[in-house]
């Protein structure tokens, strides 16, 4: 069991900063404290650096600790949580890496699909996901009920999803044809 040197740890930490931030941020989306939790995770990682064994996966180790920090943050928030069963969590952790492989393809497809939406729908997506405007505010602006906006968003996600699946399928078919 070889312990990593401080220099090694600094290099690892440096390398995973972005991933760590995004990881924590996506665990706490829209939460203004996400960056602080990520920073706290950094500190904990540094304090626990003697526990890291050289040659093992630093990112995996870091994420497990970051996940714990998020959990403990959640606990301190003392809010209700709904948690998937361990069985389901384990299945998902196993299946997820393969699922993630076509993300770049999907990102390109999403861009095309977003452009096909009506301007007011693009605007709504923009508010919901980019500006994170509270739905109540959007509701006032467009003079529609929050419930009806939620329904529209659900419909838009379905539309985008269908479009993306078609694009991805077409691209994959094309790529396979090209290789043959």
């Amino acid at each position, binding site marked *: 069991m070889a312990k990593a040197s401080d220099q090694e740890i600094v290099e690892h930490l440096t390398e995973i900063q972005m991933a760590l931030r995004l990881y924590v941020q*996506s665990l706490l989306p829209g939460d203004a404290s996400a960056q602080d939790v990520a920073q706290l995770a950094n500190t904990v990682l540094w304090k626990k650096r003697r526990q890291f064994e050289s040659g093992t996966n630093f990112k995996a180790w870091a994420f497990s600790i970051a996940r714990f920090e998020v959990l403990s943050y959640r606990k301190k928030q003392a809010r209700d949580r709904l948690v998937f069963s361990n069985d389901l969590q384990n299945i998902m952790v196993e299946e997820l890496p393969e699922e993630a492989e076509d*993300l*770049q393809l999907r*990102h390109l497809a999403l861009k095309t699909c977003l452009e096909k939406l009506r301007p007011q729908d*693009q605007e709504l997506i923009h508010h919901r996901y980019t500006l994170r405007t509270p739905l109540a505010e959007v509701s006032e602006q467009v003079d529609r009920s929050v419930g009806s906006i939620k329904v529209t968003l659900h419909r838009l996600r379905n539309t985008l999803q269908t479009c993306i699946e078609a694009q991805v399928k077409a691209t994959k078919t094309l790529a396979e044809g090209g290789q043959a």
Partner: protein
Amino acid sequence: MNHDDLMQQIDLLLEGDISEAAFLELEAELTVNPAARKAYYQRLKLHTLLTTPADSDLADLPLSGSNEKNPATEWQNPKHNETEVSGRKKSFKTLPLVSLMGLMGLLLLGFMIFNPSISDPSAPNHLVKAEPIATGYAVITGQSDAQWKGKRLQDGDLVPAGNLQLEAGAVKIELFSGVTVVLEGEANFAIASPMELILESGRLRAQVPEAAQGFTVRTATGDVVDLGTDFAVVAGATASEQTEVHVLSGEVEWHGNESTMQTLHTGEGLKGEQRITAGKAFLGPDEFAQLQAEKQTRWKTMLKQLENEERLIAFFPMDGASRDQTDLSMHTRQGALVAATGSTDRWGSTNGAVDFSPTGSRARLRISGKYQSMTLMCWVQINSLDRWYNSLFLTDGHELHEPHWQIMNDGRLFFSVKAHEPPVPTPQNFKDKHIFYSPVMWDRSKAGKWMHIATTFDQQAGEVAHFIDGVEISREAIPDDMRVTHAHIGNASIGNWNEPKRDDPKFVVRNLNGSIDEFAIWNVALSPEDIAEWVKNSAP
């Protein structure tokens, strides 16, 4: 559950609107139905891509679909979103990684339903209060005669948040973004994020790797934004002194508070708003390493003088590569390592120190003679204090007039000299020695850091004092009934304790979980000035 219902529930889940009953139903469906999971993953991916932080493709959606900004680098410099930084390179390759992380995050998000209402701006403060630990974005990776105002910082320390004052010397800091900065005192600065340093006054040189382009140094008169470079900034202590920027290689942007943005290239500089030629006399990471190497050489040269030092009883430099340990004092004693292995010393040299963490580790030595007073000192790097007693230097057994020097598991130093042989039968409350404890001088935050420990046993002044890193942390009078005619050592161990019963194969675990370097015993109680000087000269 039909497909429409399923998608409805998944969206409610991702939007944080799901009821507990619906959640349980969805959970059951996802557990048994691979097709349902597939649908969930597809939706998660959509959600991830839509919510990729600072995704400029979405931000600029109504205008154009051909924006080339890279969302992945936005994190590095969030405060510069409004001041467009040119030269930021597109690195699309990072997208799958970023998105995978996002996706994994979302997966977990499914486990802990996101509730947008929980945002609480005061939360970070609560966190800090609940867990009193320093936070930071950077680590100190080298110091050269650094003198700090307030809290002393050491190599390996996280750089704390808030203003820092380096009164003299130089310090090398590595930020988690990959940026290396060297600051020369007198400097007043703060590290605001892995990508942002505030320089109120002082000299700074920064080397910025490609991955950290956009690194910003803020000064009172403007900001220097890096575009992949090696540059220096000199900020004056008073408002009348003009800020200087020197580009040693690459390119930076100067965003003056009162002027338009200027780009500076290799060899170019600015003083105030005046163009100048870039200076060269800035301490950089390379020169810094050179400085440290020079200091180590100076120290090694000084050690050679020790053979003429009459006050020195023994000096073991601790050679991790050899079983035999040679005493550099005029007595040229021989010691031997048992089980212990080599470790990296405080200068970073392999096998320059001895690691006593393997069970049974010790350095055996024999020191004859009687001593009125003495000083024990060494450099030590402690991994943990997980034994009740953690040995520094102990004589075998527990004989009359013999010193024991160790660390309690609560972080206090322990020093004693046995003053009385207990009579038989031993009365209750009989004390054979006085234990001189220091205040707590070690906690987990110091794990793995080199520190210097010294203890003086001064029978002339009738006092015992403990020193950490050359600074006295406690001084206590020797009780009258605990004075001894002399102290002696005989057979002893560094880093462990040999019990009196030699025929008993069982032994207590007291070896130090850590490394020791440059162990010294003096036949006098060194003055606080002597100890401070020793540490100053021998510290990296």
